[in-house]
Every structure is written in C-alpha cells, then in structure tokens.
C-alpha cells in the first residue's frame, strides 16, 4: 500500500550501515530503540536522583542555608517532573520496546518508524525541559503546576513555559508509543496466541497503553490551556477574566490519576513475570490478574478528586470520590493475593530479580495501605500537603514502580546482553536500596502526622523534626549508594562476562526461546503457540496434563472458546508486516532518517514557543519536510 512513483527527491541516501552513530539515528529496530530509551531515561534517573539528594541535603538540619528557597522550588519541581515523565514512564517504555515483540513472537512492532519517532520526540522533549536549567529559569511551580501559581501573573519568566511546552512534546511521544503498542499486541501475536495466552507483562503493557492513549490528551489540553494563558493572555485559569484555578486541578488530576496507574502497571507486569519464574509455578489466577489490571485502569478515571478533598467541593463530591478511591484498592489487593498465591508452595529461588520482586510486594502494600488511609476526607484533611503524602507516593513509586523496574532489569539483562549482572553486587545493590529507601521514607510518615508541610525549604529548630529529617537524608544517601553499586555492577559485569545462554532462569515465556541477545529478526522461525506459557510446556511436556487440564476444566472455560474463534480465522503470521508474504524470506523494515527529522521539527516548534517566531518557522519547515519525506518513503525499498 505504498505510493510507488510519488517520491521525495532524496537529499541523502537511506541509512544502511549497522554500526556507528548513523545506524542508531536511522534505526527502526525495536531492541535498539529499547536500549536508547533505557540509557536515556537512566541518565535522567541520575539527574533526578541528584536533585533529590540536594533536597535531602537542604532538609538534613533545621534552618539550613545550603540551598535558597528559589533553587529549592526548582529542585522539587524538576525532581518530580523528571522522575515521572523522564524516568519511570520511559524506563517502562524501554521494557515495552525490548519485550513486547519477543513475548508475542513477532519480528518488530506494528509501526517501526513511528516507534523511532516516539523515542526521538521523547529525547528532544526531555532535553527541552531540562534546557531550562541552563537558562537559569527552571520550572518552579511543582510537578502538578497548580494554577494560579503556574500562571504568568504569579510566575513570570520562562520556567513554567518550559515545563508546559516540554510536557506537551513528551505527551506526543507517549501517545505515539501507546498507539503503536496497542496495535502491536492486538495484531502481531504469533499464530495460536489468543488474548488469554499472551504473557502477563504484555497484558499490563496493553492496559497501560490504553491508559496512555486516553490520559495523555487530557494533559495535552491542560498544557495547551496553561500555555495560551501564559503566552497569549487567555483566561482559562485566571479568575480576573472569569476563569477558575480549580479547573486546572480537575483537568490535571483527571490526567494525573490514570497517570499513577500508567507508572505502576508495567512494574506489576514485570513482577507478575518474575514471581512465577523464580517460584517455578504458573502465575496464580492469571485471569484475575488481567481483569484486576483492567478494573484498575477503568476505575482510575473516577478517583481524581481525592487529590482535591481540601479544595471544598462539598460533601457529595467528597463522599463519591472517597468511595471510589476505597473501591479501587480492591483490584489492587486482588493482585497482591495473586502474587502471594504464586509464591505459596513454590520452589523459590532467591536470585536478585526475585529479591526485588518480593520487596516490591511488601513496599507496595505499605504504600497502598497509606493511600487507603487518605481516601477518607476527614483524615486526608489532616494529611493534605504534609510529608505523609510524600511518604505514601514514594512507597508506591520507588518501593513499587522502581523496585519492579530493577527486578526487570536484573531478570532480563541476560536476554538483552547475553550475560548476567553480577549476583553479589546485585544483592548489595538490593540491600542498600532497601535499607536506604526505608530509612529515607518511613520517617516521613510520622513527620507528616506531626504536621511537617511539603515543599518548604526549611523548618524551625523548635519543631522536633530534626532527627527524622536527618535519618531521611542519611537514608537518601544510602539509596544513592545502592544506585551507584548498580552502575558499578553494569560495568563490572560487562568486563567480567558470565555468559547466560538462551534461557538462564528456566523461563516460561517466548522471549527465552530465542538466543541472548536476540538476532535482528528476533526469531528464526515464528513460534506456533498452543498454551499459555507455551515455552515452558515445550520444555516440560509432562506438566501439560497437570496444568492445562485444570485450566480448561475450571479456571478459563472462555479460553477454549477463544481458541475456536482464533482457529476459525485465517491467521497466518504475526511476524511479518509485509502484505501476504508471511512464509517467504525474513522481511525487516528498512532504516529511516525521517523519524529523527520529524522529531527535530516537533521539538523546534516547541522551542519556538519559548523563543521567537523565527524558531517556530524553522521548526515548522523541518516538521513538514519530515512528514512529507516520511509519507513518500516506502517502508521497504523495492529490492
């Protein structure tokens, strides 16, 4: 379906080389894009971590003057923004990219060039938002950008404009990636792999992608409205012009609460892969984990006002959102019981990935419980804007999302690279992170109960908060040390390679059936799938009767019906995106520079809003060039 003779005049030859910088700029290989996502977001993780350490340094003692209030505001704003949008989301995207095609038995994602575009837009967007540090105008209105504090009246200067433009650019990258993974998971599955046979991480990716596609436009609207308020003087959040600052909170949290699940669901997917492998049992209650994930994603849209209990929305609204918030804890609790059930009676091996996953369950449960506490509006009135809330969401996002991601890093590293990460350094990494994390964030619970407000750059000596704050700061340093050990581990393991083989953990899913690292085309032959955890049953056919018999009789009768539907469809292959030549030679998309060019144009437009119309014009020209070139370039040159 390509237009044949309609071609752009070529300014440069199509990228062909498989090494060197141009091979990375022109790449459309999902594994390389995953690596780019991983490295970029890890660098931002270090940046965000250093910001956190500076915050902890300032708060270590009472009436400290290490950092002034202006810089402090910029630090906590950029720390939150960086960790949410430039670290957890793209680190999850790194896993999506690397794993989804491998887990569903495909040779790439559905739209390889769009995938490259997502990464480049993310990279330029992240550079744009951090460029504000160089100009000395870093955003300072909090990662939630509450109006009117984020408006031009009370926050002149370019800081929050950087923030809002940067987030809009990053949102584009997320939506493009979300669309890509929805279509990839629905359309590129290996023959025989019905929806209830896909690995659980793939399910969580699908649910996360749906959330991204539906939630990021909401942030885009908030961003556009704030941007026009700031740049063109409209009145969306300006009460003098008839607008309402509370509207910002509604729109931002309508995005913001699904966003919380965008951050945590991929980590839940990782943990749901690691636990069965290291307990040597299938995931307990697979359909319940799937439906609990879907239920969380659905209910996540009806809880946003629990961020606004103290705004004064009235008892009816507060009650409704309080009930929905308590209800959403139910599917989350279901998952925790599924994980415990997976461990129960298992033949457990305590390797590093498993340590991280088990810690995930414990820490996430603590964070979840403190979350349910402030689902009650009267209680929340006490806790709003105190360190109790800070403790809660760090237990969920560091103890939850980040530990899950580290579990995934240790688990899949052999698949990504071909060698293990060192186990002893891994355990040191885990132990330091756990000690540091708990020492840092547990005291914040009682600091918050004692009334210490968030976002203050210092506190008085007579408040009795010094010991806990000092403990938290020491904990932060230990947590940072844990991350340092991880970095050392990466280099140490690279220099002292312990080769892993295809299937080092005795895994259950398809990615372990191909070589480590996988070839460019992922699979020499597209796998044929009969069962959930098909690779496991290929290795241990004697267990088929034991597990599969049970599943068909009791747990998932619907699975059998799906199979019949699936067989009735003339499904040929999930692995080729050529049209109708699934069984011929392996067929990969050609490389392309246009995703990079188009991303440059989008970033140029964004930079234009921050500088002047000349930059907008240049950005627009590059954007149009990228678009037309992309549209006219066939996915594959005729051979």
């Amino acid at each position, binding site marked *: *379906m*390509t*237009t*044949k*003779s*309609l071609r752009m005049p070529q300014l440069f030859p199509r990228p062909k080389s498989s090494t060197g910088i141009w091979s990375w700029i022109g790449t459309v290989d999902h594994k390389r894009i995953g690596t780019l996502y991983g490295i970029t977001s890890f660098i931002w993780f270090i940046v965000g971590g250093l910001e956190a350490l500076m915050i902890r340094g300032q708060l270590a003692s009472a009436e400290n003057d290490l950092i002034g209030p202006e810089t402090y505001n910029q630090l906590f704003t950029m720390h939150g923004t960086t960790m949410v949008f430039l670290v957890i989301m793209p680190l999850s995207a790194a896993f999506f990219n690397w794993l989804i095609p491998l887990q569903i038995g495909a040779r790439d994602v*559905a*739209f390889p060039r769009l995938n490259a575009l997502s990464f480049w837009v993310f990279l330029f967007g992240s550079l744009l938002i951090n460029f504000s540090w160089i100009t000395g105008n870093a955003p300072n209105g909090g990662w939630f950008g509450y109006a009117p504090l984020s408006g031009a009246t009370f926050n002149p200067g370019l800081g929050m404009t950087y923030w809002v433009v940067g987030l809009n650019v990053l949102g584009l990258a997320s*939506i493009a990636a*979300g*669309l*890509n993974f*929805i*279509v990839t998971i*629905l*359309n*590129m*599955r290996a023959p025989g*792999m019905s929806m209830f046979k896909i690995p659980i991480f793939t399910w969580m990716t699908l649910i996360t992608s749906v959330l991204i*596609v*539906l*939630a*990021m*436009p*909401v942030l*885009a*609207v*908030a961003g*556009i*409205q704030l941007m*026009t308020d700031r740049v*063109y*003087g*409209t*009145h*969306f959040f300006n009460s003098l*012009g*008839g*607008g*309402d600052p509370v*509207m910002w909170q509604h*729109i931002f949290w*309508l995005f913001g609460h699904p966003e919380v699940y965008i951050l945590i669901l991929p980590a839940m997917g990782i943990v749901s892969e690691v636990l069965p492998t290291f307990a040597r049992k299938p995931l307990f209650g697979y359909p319940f984990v799937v439906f609990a994930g879907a239920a969380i994603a659905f209910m996540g849209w009806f809880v946003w006002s629990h961020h606004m209990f103290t705004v004064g929305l009235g008892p009816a609204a507060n009650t409704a959102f309080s009930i929905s918030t308590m209800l959403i804890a139910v599917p989350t609790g279901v998952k925790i019981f599924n994980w415990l059930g997976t461990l129960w009676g298992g033949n457990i091996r305590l390797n590093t990935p498993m340590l991280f996953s088990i810690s995930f369950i414990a820490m996430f449960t603590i964070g979840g419980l403190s979350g349910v506490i402030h689902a009650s509006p009267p209680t929340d009135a006490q806790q709003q804007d105190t360190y109790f809330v800070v403790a809660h969401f760090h237990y969920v996002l560091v103890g939850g999302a980040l530990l899950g991601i580290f579990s995934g890093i240790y688990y899949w590293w052999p698949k990504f690279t071909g060698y293990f990460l060192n186990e002893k350094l891994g355990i040191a990494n885990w132990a330091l992170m756990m000690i540091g994390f708990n020492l840092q964030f547990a005291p914040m619970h009682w600091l918050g109960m004692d009334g210490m407000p968030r976002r203050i750059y210092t506190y008085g000596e007579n408040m009795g908060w010094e010991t806990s704050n000092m403990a938290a700061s020491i904990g932060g340093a230990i947590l940072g040390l844990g991350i340092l050990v991880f970095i050392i581990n990466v280099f140490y393991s690279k220099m002292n390679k312990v080769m892993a083989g295809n299937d080092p953990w005795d895994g259950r899913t398809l990615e372990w059936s191909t070589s480590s690292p996988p070839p460019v085309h992922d699979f020499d032959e597209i796998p044929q799938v009969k069962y959930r955890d098909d690779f496991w049953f290929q290795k241990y056919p004697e267990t088929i009767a034991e597990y599969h018999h049970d599943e068909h009789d009791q747990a998932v009768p619907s699975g059998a019906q799906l199979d019949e539907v699936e067989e009735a*469809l*003339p*499904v*040929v*292959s*999930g692995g*080729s*995106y050529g*049209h*109708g030549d*699934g069984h011929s030679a392996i067929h990969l998309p050609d490389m392309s520079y246009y995703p990079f060019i188009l991303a440059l144009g989008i970033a140029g437009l964004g930079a234009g809003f921050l500088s002047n119309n000349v930059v907008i014009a240049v950005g627009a020209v590059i954007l149009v060039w990228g678009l037309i070139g992309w*549209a006219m370039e066939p996915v594959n040159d005729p051979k």
Partner: protein
Amino acid sequence: MTQAAATEHHEPVENTSTGLNSRKLMMWAFLASDVMFFGVFIATYLVYRGKSLVGPYPSEILDIPITSVSTFVLLMSSLAMVLGLHYVKAGEKNKATLWILVVVVLGAIFMGFQFYEFRTFAHEGLTPRTNIFGTTFFILTGIHGAHVTIGVIWMAFMAYSSHFGQLRQDNALDLEIAGLYWHFVDIVWIVIFTVIYLISASDGPPLGVGPTIIHG
C-alpha cells in the same frame, strides 16, 4: 458496476492476529485519543458557560444562520467523502478524483467561514483575551479548525494521488483511513455546533453583572 460490487464484498483478509488492518486499527485508537482531547476542551467550555464578566456575550455575537450554512457545508463534505471512497473502490478514477476534490473544496469553504467568523468577532471586540467566552470559544473552535485544515491537506494529497493513478482499488484503504479521520472531525463539529451555537446561543452575562440582554 457488477465488478465494483464484487470488489466491495471481498475485502482482503488482513495478515494479522485480529484480521483487521493495523493502520486502520491505529486510526481507531487515535480517534479514541482525540475524543478525550476534544472532550476535555468541550467540558471546559461547558463548565465556563455564562461565566464571562464582560461582554460581548454569546447572545450578542453568535450568528447562528451563517454558522448553520457552514455546518451544512461540512456535513455535505462527509457525503462527498463516502462517494469518493465508493468510486475508488469501484475503480472509477475520474469520479473518485472529482469527489475527493469536492471534499477538499467543501472543507476549505468551511475554513473560509471560520476565518470570516473569527475576523468578524475580532472586529466586534471579541478575542481570546476579552472574556472567558472568548477564551473557550476561540481555542475550542480553533483546535477543531486545525483538525479540518490537516484533513484538507491530507485530502488534497489523496486527490493528487487519485488523479495520477496512485490511489487505486488495491490501496483504497489509504483513503478509507483518511475518511475515518474526516468523518470524525465532522462528528466533533456536530457536538461543538450543538454546544456552542444551539445550547448557549442565548447566554448573556451572569446574574448580577451588567444589564440582562434577553427579554422574553
């Protein structure tokens, strides 16, 4: 026409797990995303209805007959779109090109109406900075106008492709996907027209601000 009927009833089965074309599936997913995008802008408009502190208010400035004409023009473009796709699938190149061009022209006329409306409003003292009605009105209809403009450019490419024989029966899906987008943008306009021009056409100043304009 018998050949056309035959091709329409035998759409090729796609080589994917669901049997649906991947690009078409992605367009549907994108439209879901766009629903949220417009949905929040429309919700913002509705929340801010009747909150303007100074004029001009909707009842003073909206010209419903003119906008009804432009709405009619836009809706007719969807009919042209359907006919264009029909003739591409039927392999009748010239008719296909003609109808796709009609889509382009009608879309452009709609944009002309919007340009005229914006200019008139600005002339009568309503800009995005005047009041909250101006802010929400211009940004909502402007975002919709941007969607229509992208659609017009896309359709112009389609007309060009059709004329030079690159849009044929076997890749009619290219036009079908563009058509999904076009129909969606039309449907959004029906909602916007209802919300702005029909529901809030009589909105005056809020209680206690200025003289009430509407008398019976």
